[in-house]
């Protein structure tokens, strides 16, 4: 099936972004409205495509559109083409739907910012790039979108770049992402070299002929890409700092959509991972590590956005774990991705609403008792909270429990380890999310009288309410009659579920619920029944201290990557000026045979350059001699 309207999905927001950037200040007055309308238009097209899809049989649902022939070098041909199938439509609706809500929210949230127009231009650009990422029909087209969202994220994290720390955060995000991008480009090159094609369809068709080694290499490189973009261990450190961006950005890019691109990549490449079990196991392990890692960090954060960011990291860990469990898990990974998109975006918007009312204060120790002043925010945030900790019948209950269940049923030691990790993660999640809610909305007020907490305007709480609705209902809708699993079946071939299961769904649910209750009660005891100090207590265990410092992730990065990189650079610069210079001096000393001559034979740079050339010539001759001897 082909369709000519796919391109408009991307073209609308891209057009908006171009208009806003080119028109400059002239569009200050109507720019945000145009951007929002175009985003909504994209959502409309998405819905239309969705309804058309529904009317077709399951095998006929995918549509594609060839735009133009992009690269053709010899035998290598890539068309710039788009493809909309059951998997990408989920993302299209999530991106444009949540995206539009966040556009609306931002109209109010950013109303005092004199650069609001630029913000909307970037936001529209992000939507376009993210749509390209999920609609591209080859790895190369995906790569274009991948770089595009990276750029948009980078621009938006650094949006308030007046503060140097924010610019640093933007850079940090950029570098972590570059490492990931390198993985993706290597994966593409290996795929091209071994399979001769980079289109999804082509790779899928030829994957069976490739050696397991090559497929494992591609898989591992794709995983590196995913860890960079989705803030997974060991490239996770940028996400917390990325919270420097405006809160709507954190909600859209760093919670609901962009950071889940890694999960999309892995799910999209299911045919590679299914054929490369080692790579698949690595995916599951990375997911399990990250979900615990993020959860532990989440327990110690006092900054509301950073706590939510740690939680995002952890929840994406669940998705990656799900995707790493193979055919049994893909659908649940995507399901959790979608439900998470609703509840996490909703909670971020809630956090933004709180900050809006509290003069941009982010420290939760300076909140408290806000439920009285912001009832709607409290309600929407609370629904999101119930969803994330997995209370039935809220969305998270369906999606997260399924991943835990599949993890246990993966079999053997692997299944038990991964399952236990996922269960433990659920308990910790319950603890830190309860902590966030209590510190923010319950208890006594800890803010000074300068703050005047107030409910946000309708433009802000409207989108929050809609997202909260999604957090309540989506889980049920997706699982009702295995709707999402059946929907995705043509994309990710599935084995029948519940085969030789270790634990029945019921037992998993009960276990999870017990642990959740445990986590919640601990948090209630510690933060609700006891007084919360306004200053950060110092007499805490080493674990808390470590968690506060993000489990030393920055220190690790610095020691392992940054320092050696810097010293290598310095060393090379020194080589350029000192060592080569020194060599010239040394030779001069040798030649004249006296230390005195060193002074009179002052080395100048032209001569040291000539020395480079001469030494290079000698080295070349010597090397040729050795090669041919």
């Amino acid at each position, binding site marked *: 099936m082909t369709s000519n309207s796919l391109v408009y999905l991307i073209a609308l927001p891209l057009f908006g972004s171009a208009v806003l950037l080119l028109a400059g200040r002239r569009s200050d007055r109507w720019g945000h409205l145009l951007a929002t309308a175009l985003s909504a238009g994209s959502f409309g097209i998405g819905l239309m495509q969705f309804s058309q899809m529904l009317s077709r049989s399951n095998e006929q649902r995918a549509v594609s559109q060839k735009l133009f022939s992009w690269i053709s070098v010899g035998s290598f041909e890539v068309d710039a083409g788009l493809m909309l199938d059951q998997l990408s439509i989920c993302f299209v609706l999530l991106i444009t739907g949540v995206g539009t809500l966040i556009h609306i929210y931002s109209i109010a949230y950013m109303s005092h910012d004199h650069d609001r127009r630029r913000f909307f231009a970037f936001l529209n650009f992000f939507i376009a790039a993210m749509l390209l990422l999920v609609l591209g029909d080859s790895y190369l087209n995906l790569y274009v979108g991948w770089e595009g969202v990276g750029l948009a994220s980078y621009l938006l994290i650094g949006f308030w770049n007046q503060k140097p720390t924010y610019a640093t955060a933007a850079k940090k995000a950029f570098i972590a992402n570059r490492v990931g991008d390198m993985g993706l480009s290597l994966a593409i090159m290996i795929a091209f070299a071994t399979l001769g094609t980079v289109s999804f369809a082509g790779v899928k068709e030829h994957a069976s002929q490739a050696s397991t080694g090559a497929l494992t290499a591609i898989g591992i490189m794709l995983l590196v890409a995913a860890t960079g973009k989705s803030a997974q261990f060991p490239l996770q450190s940028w996400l917390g700092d990325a919270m420097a961006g405006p809160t709507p950005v954190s909600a859209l890019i760093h919670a609901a959509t962009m950071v889940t691109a890694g999960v999309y990549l892995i799910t999209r490449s299911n045919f590679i991972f299914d054929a490369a079990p080692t790579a698949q196991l690595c995916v599951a392990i990375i997911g399990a590590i990250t979900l615990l890692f993020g959860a532990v960090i989440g327990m110690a954060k006092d900054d509301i956005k950073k706590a939510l960011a740690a939680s995002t990291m952890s929840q994406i860990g669940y998705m990656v774990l799900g995707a790493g469990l193979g055919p049994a898990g893909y659908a649940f990974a995507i399901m959790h991705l979608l439900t998470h998109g609703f509840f996490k975006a909703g909670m971020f918007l809630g956090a933004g609403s709180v900050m809006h009312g509290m003069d941009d204060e982010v420290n939760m120790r300076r909140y408290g008792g806000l439920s009285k002043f912001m009832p709607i925010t409290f309600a929407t945030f609370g629904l999101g909270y119930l969803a994330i900790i997995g209370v039935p019948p809220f969305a998270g209950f369906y999606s997260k429990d399924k991943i835990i269940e599949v993890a246990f049923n993966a079999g053997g030691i692997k299944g038990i380890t991964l399952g236990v990790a996922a269960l433990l993660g659920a308990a910790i999640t319950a603890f830190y999310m309860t902590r966030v809610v209590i510190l923010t909305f319950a208890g006594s007020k800890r803010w000074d009288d300068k703050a005047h907490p107030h409910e946000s305007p309708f433009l802000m709480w409207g989108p929050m309410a809609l997202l909260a609705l999604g957090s309540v209902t989506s889980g049920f809708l997706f699982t009702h009659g295995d709707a999402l699993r059946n929907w995705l079946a043509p994309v990710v071939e599935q084995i029948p579920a519940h085969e030789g299961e270790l634990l029945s769904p019921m037992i998993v649910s009960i276990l999870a619920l017990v642990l959740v209750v445990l986590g919640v009660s601990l948090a209630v005891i510690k933060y609700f029944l006891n007084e919360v100090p306004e200053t950060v207590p110092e007499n805490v265990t080493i674990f808390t201290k470590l968690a506060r410092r993000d489990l030393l992730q920055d220190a690790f990065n610095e020691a392992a990557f940054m320092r050696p990189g810097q010293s290598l650079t310095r060393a090379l610069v020194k080589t350029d000026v000192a060592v080569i210079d020194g060599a010239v001096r040394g030779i001069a000393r*040798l*030649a*004249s*045979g*006296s230390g*005195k*001559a060193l002074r*009179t034979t002052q080395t100048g740079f032209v001569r040291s350059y000539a020395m480079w050339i001469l030494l290079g010539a000698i080295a070349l*001759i010597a090397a040729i*001699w050795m090669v041919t001897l």
Partner: protein
Amino acid sequence: MNSTGNPYVPILVIGAIGFGFAAFSLVAAAITGPKRYNRAKADPYECGIEPSPQAAEGGRFPVKYFLTAMLFIIFDIEIVFLYPWAVTFDKLGVFGLVEMSIFIATVFVAYAYVWRRGGLEWD
């Protein structure tokens, strides 16, 4: 050529001799020569003659010397191409004549440039 043994050895020996010669000269100069630093050593032409008369700007040689020398070299050396042509003049025929005329004309253009821009004037 050296048919026995490693063919690189002569190259290496020659390189070593060249290096040794240069090193020897410098060492010998450093040991035997006086160690006084003299600005004249960095001058063009180290022949020890005090250049005179001093030019207006305090330089040693008027640039005109260099200019004239350079012009002489450049026009003089072009003659080189006339010799082979002269030897095979009859065999090259009209083609050779035309090509040589173009060549001479090009040299004349350069000459005209030098002349018009005052390169031949001595003050």
